[in-house]
């Protein structure tokens, strides 16, 4: 069963990484980051289970969830600002925000 969970972890991280490489839309980049972080969180839980330190793993995973949510919120805010200022969600145009 641990093998199945490892497959899920690696698949989630690979899918997130793949989407992160190919996409240019900032909202899709946030989706990719979310998927990637979910894989990392499951890895943390599995590591806690295997080393019999579930409580430590849970507290670390809560920190991961909080950080992930804040990253999503700030990314969404940036996407709105990007759309307002440049009319597109292309990550290439993010440098235009400083002008």
């Amino acid at each position, binding site marked *: *069963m641990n*093998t*199945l*969970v*490892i*497959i*899920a972890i*690696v*698949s*989630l991280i*690979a*899918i997130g*990484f*793949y*989407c992160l*490489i*190919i*996409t*240019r*839309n900032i*909202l*899709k980049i*946030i*989706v990719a980051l*979310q*998927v990637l972080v*979910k894989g990392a*969180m*499951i890895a943390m*839980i*599995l590591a*806690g*289970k*295997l*080393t*019999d*330190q579930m*409580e*430590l*793993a*849970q*507290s670390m*995973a*809560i*920190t991961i*969830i*909080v950080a*992930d*949510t*804040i990253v999503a*919120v*700030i990314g*969404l*805010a940036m*996407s*709105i*600002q990007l*759309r*307002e200022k440049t009319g597109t*969600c292309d990550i290439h145009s993010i440098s235009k925000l400083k002008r």
Partner: protein
Amino acid sequence: MPLVYFLVVAALIYSAHKATRVKGLLNAALWLAGTSCLTSILVYILGSPGLAVIELSVGAGLVTVLFVFAISIIGDEKITSDVFVPHWLAISISVVSFGMLAYLLIAQHMPSVQSETTSPIFSDLFWEGRKIDIYLQGALFISGILGILLLIAPAVSKRIKEGKNK
């Protein structure tokens, strides 16, 4: 039990794949919510129900609401096919690197280390043992609130302007 694991893992991978590959942004947000639900189920099966509830409420609830809110402001535009690198190269990099990682993890056999000390209670560990992380989470919450204000500000100011014009 292995069948449940298999079904959840298969659905999780499919849902994550759809979230990253589907064209519409709203569809991607909904598939991401499904991924969060399945992640929380997997976390629950792994023996951490408290964390599963947090993941379900935050990942599938709060983040999805924020996504839908942001998409309603900027519009559900279709994703363009222009990419940084070719698809075949991205797939090759992902499959080779993470395939090697999976092989190493599975072939080397995951360690099953049993700690000698007794495991502390979760609340003691969280509130007493990891105070710096709590402060960090407080700072993160404040930046999140500022982010939400930034998220809402353009739409609200636009509506105020529209109201004044009327």
